[in-house]
């Protein structure tokens, strides 16, 4: 059913936009390419966008699930904990100080930024006394500081501002097959790693001592998990800018369906996250016609209430 939802939302993502296409045209564009205007639209604009949404969504959902397991913290989320902001700050520096303009260049900076912040967050979150509130606060404060830096750089360099003000909002709008081609290997590697460590992550969730007594390799699992988060978040952020809350919402949703086993949570998260991301993207295209609302904004506006609901529902001891 999750897969059916995914197919449906993919079709919607191809069909709906500034120019709406009937399903027959979508079909035609997909399988009987004849070079008509609609066919070009489908192949050159809508399909890349949808494919990018698919892989980025999967990446963010998986990263969120892994982070929540790794830090044993239900509020852990790459966007909320500053990983995306780290990638943003690094990319901004790349554009403004190193004159990097190509996506290939961005990606490495985004990785570096994401890696630094995720290690920092993990150090904060992995300590014995960490509780969700403190971790979330630390993440938010780091995010605020990084965005402050991003703003300052933009202010000094108004050309950078013009380019960056779109990039610093997560968006799928500028997607093309070239972008997809550059980021998919990283994301595929991240996904593979994540699926490999599903079982040890299960053990890790029960606490260090239990995990060790179950025979899990703590350090190896942690390092691999961090690597996976960095690859997934870095690539996703480099491709479409920071998108928050996908990684928070999906694992909670999936947990409600599958229960707490990571071996089920991860595949479900990989399928349902793109549903949410593409869905949000489609909503963004519909509500603000003829222009559109960036998907990062839609997910934040959708995710904020979910987050607040989670906070209100849970008691402190359960967090």
């Amino acid at each position: 059913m999750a897969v059916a939802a995914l197919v449906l939302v993919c079709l919607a993502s191809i069909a709906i936009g500034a120019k709406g296409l009937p399903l027959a045209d979508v079909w035609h564009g997909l399988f009987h390419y004849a070079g008509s205007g609609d066919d070009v639209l489908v192949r050159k604009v809508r399909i890349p966008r949808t494919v990018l949404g698919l892989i980025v969504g999967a990446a963010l959902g998986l990263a969120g699930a892994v982070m929540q397991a790794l830090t044993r913290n239900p509020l852990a989320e790459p966007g909320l904990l500053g990983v995306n902001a780290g990638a943003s700050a690094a990319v901004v520096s790349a554009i403004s100080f190193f004159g990097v303009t190509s996506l290939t260049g961005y990606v490495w900076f985004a990785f570096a930024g994401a890696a630094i912040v995720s290690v920092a967050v993990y150090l904060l979150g992995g300590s014995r006394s960490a509780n969700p509130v403190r971790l979330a606060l630390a993440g938010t404060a780091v995010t605020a500081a990084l965005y402050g830096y991003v703003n300052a750089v933009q202010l000094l360099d108004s050309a950078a501002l013009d380019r960056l003000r779109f990039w610093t909002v997560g968006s799928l709008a500028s997607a093309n097959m070239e972008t997809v081609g550059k980021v998919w290997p990283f994301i595929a590697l991240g996904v593979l790693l994540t699926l490999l460590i599903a079982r040890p992550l299960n053990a890790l969730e029960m606490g260090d001592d239990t995990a060790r007594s179950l025979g899990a390799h703590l350090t190896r699992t942690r390092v691999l998990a961090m690597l996976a988060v960095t690859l997934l978040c870095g690539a996703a952020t480099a491709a479409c800018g920071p998108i928050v809350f996908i990684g928070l919402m999906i694992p909670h949703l999936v947990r409600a369906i599958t229960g707490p086993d990571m071996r089920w949570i991860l595949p479900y998260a990989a399928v349902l996250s793109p549903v949410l991301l593409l869905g949000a993207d489609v909503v963004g295209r519909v509500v603000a016609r003829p222009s559109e609302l960036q998907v990062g904004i839609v997910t934040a506006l959708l995710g904020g209430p979910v987050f607040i609901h989670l906070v209100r529902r849970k008691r402190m001891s359960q967090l």
Partner: protein
Amino acid sequence: MKATQEETAGTKGTARSVRAVRTAGGYSFRMNVRASLVIVLLAALAAGTAVVLIGSGDFSMTPGEVVTTLFGHGTFQQEFIVTDLRLPRVLVGLLVGAALGVGGAVFQTISRNPLGSPDVLGFGQGATVGALTVIVLFQGGAAAVAGGAVAGGLLTGVAVYVLAWKRGVHGFRLVLVGIGAAAMLTAATQYLITKANLVDATRAVVWMTGSLDGRDWAQVWPLLVVCGVLLPLVFAHGPALRVMEMGDDAAYALGVRVERTRLVLMGSAVLLVAVATAAAGPIAFVSLSAPQLARRLTRSTGPNLVAATFMGAALLLVADWVSMEAFGDRQLPVGVVTGVLGGCYLLWLLVSERRAGRI
């Protein structure tokens, strides 16, 4: 009445820094010697920096000239430059810094977390969205932008309080709801920036960075009124806030009306922060760092409201001076300086708090 008696309030003659000052009328006041000294020094630092700031610029004046002019004995030209141009800017800096410092102290105490400052909990972002709405959607003037910022900050405050309410507002729920609100509001901010044309977008980013450039008496008066009313109110609730540090139950048992006190203090703090943001933009990290620095200097527990107020004022003025002097001709808005200083401070705080096992 003169103080008739002064003695250490410690037990059995141990040397402690809290002194009690008692007057003949049966009144008594607690004084922390070190804290009082710190407050005096901070006030002196703020005043000194203010004089230097007034004296510097294209038409530079010696500190002596500044002081004589402030007391009304300057030349006509000096009078004009000081009272019409530079004094208002410095006053705005002082008042904004004070408001942010005390607002941060209140929120950090209520949330029981050194990171729980208004700019992390969404109130700064709320004011930003309000101001940007006016800039981008209505191309409003300075006064309208300020109004938008105040409205945005207050609305966010009310919304966060209501959403965090569930048989009373608990510190942690307030923090998390605030964080959720901050994330949503940040998205709204970014949306507004992408909607804007480049001119408005630049103006918006300048506003968002926080600056004291070109502030005049029109910004001073509202700040002065709000600070004049709310600072004494907040200070009067200081003892109750001290007791609330020990947890709601303990405070309740000691006769503090916890919910009401929290509402009054939060309301005042949100209003102070909103008005400060309206006047100078969301100046980063002053409300985060001022209370913590004040606390470390005074080495006393409790919210340290007065010390945090003076710390905020001194911090902002010093940062303003740095922003004018440090980069030569290219003057940066003060928010960039506080942002960089605050970022370093934050890093240090995270590391040291982690080492102490508190984060």
